[in-house]
């Protein structure tokens, strides 16, 4: 009996030793139930292929991701691999949280990245790649075919053919008087100001109108965000709201394809297509974003994967990232949710975005009009100040005053951080 007990204890000690010998890779991510399940399955497949590695997934809700990340930084518990929103990359690299990823992942993945994907993962100071994603993103103008035909609207064929500001506002005016249309456009105010939506989707309207959130050479916002062009662009958007042309924030995010189709147009993300098309079938028209000034502009960037400087096993972390990006089931899930390709091989396997596909115009925007959000360490302040200003403007505030206050807030942050060296030398 005693011998048996001794052997059991020895066996458990040996097994315990084996368990301890496993390398644990912590992976922090966000996502809805579909993505959470998919990441869990990928982790299991990776562990089956690499029995000496344990993948520990750390989930943080989308809305509280930054708080979770801050807590991880303060308690020195940064994960090995983390999902991050692309415009925050400059801040994370400048703060020393991320390490270059190019030497750590399979080189065929690096060669497979689209130009926009490389841009969203590259730090502008050392031009190194710090993060990689399977997907990217864009915003297009969705239209209800029946309503557009009823007002005799021209349907653009491609990015070069996009509506001008005059055309666009003329159609909004006509749609506002059309029977059945409650709101001419949904700009998805329903996403609120806790998400990146306002900066992500409305920023390109400013860029198309000839201004920006910040001067990307001097890294000063005053004189740019509150310039005449930006004031004019946001006065135009405020007019849409005042005229009752825009779906209000309280009406949610599906008025375009809700019963009765109360919204005629939708300035929506690529992810909106799957649900809208399933409901509207052939009645949905996908168009490029209008030109509000001399040139077209569209957003890019999404949640991508980086490896932190805290990782004790960056090589294994890189192996996991490569495995995940090549995982067939993960790609299938991305396709089901109309994932916008960030890898060329994924694009080739996505008929939705291929030439002649229903979302081809969205993919065309990536190589023609996409403008990344300002790649600067002050980005968290830039986006928060801009979103606050837009919210104030949409609620009837003075446009010039709101934009000037936001620009000053951004400049103050940059000054307080001594210009975020070496960004202060980049003029």
């Amino acid at each position, binding site marked *: 009996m005693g011998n048996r007990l001794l052997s059991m204890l020895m066996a458990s000690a040996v097994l315990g030793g084996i368990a301890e010998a496993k390398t644990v890779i*912590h992976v922090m991510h*966000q*996502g*809805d*139930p579909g*993505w*959470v*399940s998919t990441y*869990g*399955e990928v982790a299991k497949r990776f562990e089956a292929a690499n029995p000496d590695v344990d993948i*520990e*997934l*750390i*989930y*943080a*809700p*989308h*809305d*509280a991701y930054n*708080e*979770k990340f*801050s*807590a991880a930084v*303060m*308690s*020195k*518990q940064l994960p090995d691999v983390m999902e991050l929103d692309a415009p925050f990359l400059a801040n994370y690299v400048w703060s020393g949280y991320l390490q270059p990823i190019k030497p750590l992942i399979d080189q065929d993945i690096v060669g497979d990245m689209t130009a926009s994907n490389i841009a969203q993962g590259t730090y502008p100071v050392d031009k190194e790649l710090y993060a990689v994603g399977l997907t990217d993103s864009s915003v297009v103008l969705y239209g209800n075919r029946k309503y557009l035909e009823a007002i005799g609207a021209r349907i653009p064929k491609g990015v070069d053919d996009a509506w001008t500001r005059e055309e666009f506002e003329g159609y909004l005016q006509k749609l506002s008087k059309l029977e059945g249309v409650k709101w001419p456009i949904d700009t998805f105010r329903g996403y609120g100001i806790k*998400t990146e939506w306002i900066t992500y989707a409305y920023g390109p309207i400013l860029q198309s109108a000839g201004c920006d959130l910040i001067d990307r050479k001097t890294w000063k916002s005053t004189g740019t965000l509150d310039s005449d062009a930006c004031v004019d662009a946001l006065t135009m958007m405020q007019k849409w709201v005042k005229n009752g042309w825009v779906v209000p924030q*309280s*009406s*949610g*995010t*599906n008025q375009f*394809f*809700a*019963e009765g189709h109360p919204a005629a147009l939708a300035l929506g*993300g690529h*992810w*909106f297509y799957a*649900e809208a098309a399933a*409901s509207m079938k052939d009645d949905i028209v996908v168009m490029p974003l209008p030109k509000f000034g001399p040139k077209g502009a569209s957003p890019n960037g999404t*949640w991508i994967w980086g490896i932190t400087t805290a990782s004790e096993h960056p090589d294994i972390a890189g192996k996991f990232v490569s495995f995940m990006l090549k995982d067939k089931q993960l790609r299938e899930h991305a396709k089901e*949710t109309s994932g916008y390709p960030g890898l060329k091989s994924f694009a080739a396997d996505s008929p939705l975005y291929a030439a002649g596909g229903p979302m081809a115009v969205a993919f065309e925007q990536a190589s023609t009009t996409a403008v990344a959000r300002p790649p600067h360490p002050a980005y968290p302040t830039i986006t928060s100040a801009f979103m606050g200003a837009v919210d104030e403007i949409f609620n009837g505030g003075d446009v010039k005053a709101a934009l000037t206050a936001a620009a000053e807030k951004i400049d103050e942050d940059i000054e307080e951080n001594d210009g975020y060296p070496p960004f202060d030398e980049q003029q």
Partner: protein
Amino acid sequence: MSDLAISTLPAEVTRKRSAIGSLRLIQTASILVIALVIVSPLLMLIVASLKDDRFQILADMGSFRAFWVPNPTLANFAEVGNLSGELAFGRYLLNSLFILAATVGAGLIVNSMAGFVLAWGSLRGRALILSLVIALYVIPQESIIMPLVIMVSRAGMTDTFAVQIVPWIASPLYIFLFYQFFAQLPKELFEAAEMDGASVFRIYRSIFLPLSLPALATVSILMGIETWNQYLWPILVTQTAYARPIAVAIATFFGQDSIYWDRAMAASVLMMLPILALYLAFQRWFVSSFVGSAVKG
């Protein structure tokens, strides 16, 4: 006969009766409206949890259709009731129940003991300690949350049940509530027990605690609601699904691109039930405690 009796009443009395009748009608109508306003969000939540189309739920929000479900289904509950898998909501609900029971159970013991000692103990500087306890109450949780995260992570408590229970057991508010209750009980009770040779702990356990049901009920409900609704703290200190509570799990339905209202509503109904049961179980003492506090001023 009665008609005759009424007709003989002075006109002023009839007017007064009619005014009282109208007043009662207005009172009843007002109570009904207030009750309806209070109950309607709960009703809307339950109705939405029985709909299987998340877009329809959103579309119905602005109209009376939000209170009507033509084809009720329990599919959402089946999806959020699972005990295993990547998103084991049933398991997260059990996690929350365990955290609730442990926090409230330990909280009742620790806070009542502290309140008793401050009210009747022979500790020196009781008044100063009481002042410090009251002063602690005004410090908002948010301001100490990050230092607390660092402390628990250095103590190796991250991603455990203990980290969601231990820091919230002792609370200045509940210590003060118990202190107030115990201090109001007659001095003779304490002195008589002391003369009989009972120890301070015996007096607390056998005499004062059984008399403090209203205070125990009040603290149970307030502490239960506070623990049950914890959101930011578990996000910061839990990592994996092991000790994840239901409040954090529900946030999964509010994704980057989509909100899954159907399952979020079903999970919210499940989340609401235990705290509702707790309130119903203790409401008699809870209400009497509040009424008592009001009378005693």
